[in-house]
């Protein structure tokens, strides 16, 4: 009976973080981020060697069979280093979607996710509360229409496209009739991809037409991952601001000894520190406390969006002019936070969903 990480989780976290910090010094990150496709083959393979690809896939399908909390720790570490890697959509959301599906799609797709052999971009459309085109129709097993804002879609081998009724169709990224338009986003570590379909054959259809509950669980898991990502990115910015305040001198003193600067750091820490337990709890609730899963996921995404925006500003400010330059690369985390806030539902949308989950508002 305890609220905290296990020894295995700490070890896993440490090895992931030391891998990422060796692979992603700022010059490397700058190079990997330039294309804006959110993917690097070597990094992806390295993460696979650490067991990340199958983190949520049950052992019988070749995965590690771990929980959402383990995935959230990974998301936090990836956010800390602003790692360009299609983790959230493929490794977490698609794995959760298929794990909740029938035996045939599980058997067909989960082992391939776990092996890192496929990468699935996920488009939730209106279910996520996201803005943009979301008009998709499935007729005779073929997908037609358009869907904007697909997550982790640039280097994807497949797309999982949600229909408004809560079902989802898997399609091949190279299928005829599919046009994928990638755009670089403000966050160069994650791309934006818009899809248009003309009678694209589906490889699998999962879910049923009687409600979006399963889809909402996939969405909520994604929201927890984004919250964890923001926690990591904001913690990185705070750590760097504190380190900078301990080495930069002005007026013959380290700037961290000035209360003006010290208090900015203290404010950041005060806002951010409770967020860690909040993310842990929300992630744990996705598997272990079903009645709180939706409200904690939504609150956590919304709260982290508010806190990390403040931290992003303050941490940049502590660095003075240097924080505003490209030189330090602090802006990678700043933009990561900017991106995370907007996708899969704004804080306002998430709070509304939290109200619905508690019966405070109609769905």
């Amino acid at each position, binding site marked *: 009976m305890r609220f905290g990480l296990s020894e295995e989780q700490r070890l896993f976290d440490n090895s992931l973080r030391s891998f990422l910090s060796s692979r992603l010094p700022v010059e490397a990150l700058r190079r990997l981020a330039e294309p804006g496709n959110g993917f690097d083959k070597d990094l992806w393979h390295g993460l696979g060697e650490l067991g990340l690809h199958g983190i949520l896939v049950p052992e019988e399908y070749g995965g590690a069979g771990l929980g959402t909390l383990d995935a959230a720790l990974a998301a936090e570490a990836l956010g800390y280093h602003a790692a360009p890697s299609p983790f959230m959509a493929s490794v977490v959301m698609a794995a959760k979607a298929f794990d909740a599906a029938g035996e045939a799609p599980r058997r067909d797709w989960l082992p391939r996710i776990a092996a890192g052999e496929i990468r699935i971009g996920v488009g939730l459309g209106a279910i996520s509360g996201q803005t943009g085109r979301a008009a998709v129709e499935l007729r005779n097993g073929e997908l037609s229409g358009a869907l904007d804002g697909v997550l982790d879609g640039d280097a994807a081998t497949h797309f999982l496209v949600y229909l408004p009724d809560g079902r989802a169709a898997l399609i091949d990224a190279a299928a005829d009739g599919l046009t994928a338009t990638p755009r670089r986003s403000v966050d160069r570590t994650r791309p934006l991809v818009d899809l248009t379909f003309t009678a694209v054959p589906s490889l699998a259809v999962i879910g049923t037409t009687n409600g979006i509950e399963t889809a909402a669980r996939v969405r909520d898991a994604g929201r927890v991952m984004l919250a964890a990502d923001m926690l990591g990115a904001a913690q990185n910015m705070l750590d760097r601001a504190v380190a900078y305040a301990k080495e930069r001198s002005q007026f013959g003193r380290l700037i961290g000894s000035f209360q003006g600067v010290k208090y900015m750091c*203290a404010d950041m820490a005060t806002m951010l520190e409770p967020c860690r337990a909040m993310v842990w709890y929300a992630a744990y609730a996705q598997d272990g406390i079903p009645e709180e899963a939706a409200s904690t996921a939504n609150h956590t995404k919304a709260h982290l969006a508010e806190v990390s925006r403040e931290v992003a500003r303050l941490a940049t400010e502590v660095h003075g002019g240097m924080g505003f330059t490209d030189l330090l690369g602090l802006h990678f985390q700043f933009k990561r936070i900017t991106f995370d806030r907007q996708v899969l539902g704004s804080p306002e949308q998430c709070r509304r969903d939290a109200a619905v989950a508690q019966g405070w508002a109609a769905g």
Partner: protein
Amino acid sequence: MDLTLTENHRALRDAVNAFTARHRDRAPKPGGGRKRPDQKVLEWQALLLEHGYFARTIPRDYGGFGAPRDVIELAIIADAFSRAGVSPGIHNQGISMLVPTLLEVGTEEQKRRWVGPTIRGETIWCQGYSEPGSGSDLAAAQTRAAVQDGHFVVNGQKIWTSSAHYADMMFLLCRSEPELPKHAGLSYLLVPMNNPGIEVRPLRTMTGRAEFNETFFTDVRVPLDQIVLSRGDGWRVANITLKYERLLLGDANKLQQRLEAILRMMREPGPEGTPLLDQPEWRDRLLRLQGEVMAARHHNLRLLTEQAEGVDSGLGRLIVKYHGTMLGHRLTSLAIDVMGASGLAYEPQGEMAEDDAATTWHIDYMYDIGLIIGGGSSNIQKNIIGERGLGLPREPKAAVGA
């Protein structure tokens, strides 16, 4: 992470829910405190202690319930009381600050003598820390404790002593070794307030009530054994108490109780008939605060676990007072906004009568400012967070003399 509820946990939750439903009429109204517990409060406290819903993990030898520390149990109990809107018992400086201090560094005799009556609400303590000349600079305390014929003899003045006008005892930080450097010359004494050399003058605050006092000491004699640890250890003991004060002032369960109380208000039909909870702009304000309280509560669970495992939470513990008091004020801000103009009628009662709901919220709204300032002001907290928590360099000392 294992928050699975065992059979025992489920049984406890059912038992607490049954308890609050059955006994809610016997419970005093939550909030607005800062008065000497009356008979109703004392009886309620006794009932809570008997059921182990208060002082659950304090050993039986000292008057507690003696249960092993289980974070989930504590959370279940706190949750059930705040959801039911029923008082979870007395929270005062003796219970939340002195008792854990004695449990940490007190002698066996001190624990046996003081813990029981304090948690029962029979012995009320006040805190003799601040002085007119040493507020934020607490270690500069000048109140003198000289040793004469087998006693400490105390002379000096304390200020902001909340509840001194009805307290039985004071835990007092005073200077016993004036020849030693500032931090090394202090002692922490346990002083009966009925001593004839003590004079308490009420200090009326912005709430219109006198929650604070000035306390004057003239040749107050205190037995030599009424000291916690030894002469010169006062700064260390005071800091242990301050650690608990930070946790008390940032109490996440209190924040949750307030949130639940506001939710109940917002469910009532508003001035135009529609409950404010059904109006998106009001609902979003509540939800923002709910998210923040949720973070505070889960953070508290983490701290409780670390405490139980003997892990020093460091930064995580240092932020609690600053975080909790600022959030508390935002909650009372929403509460008085929810009441709006019709909640402006304000008539605080005297010491013994209960205030009406609107007055209580306005008192809490103002008193929260006092909590932001007291117990180490927010700026002092930020120094502590920055220097002890983040390792930032200290402010250079101003040149002495000149």
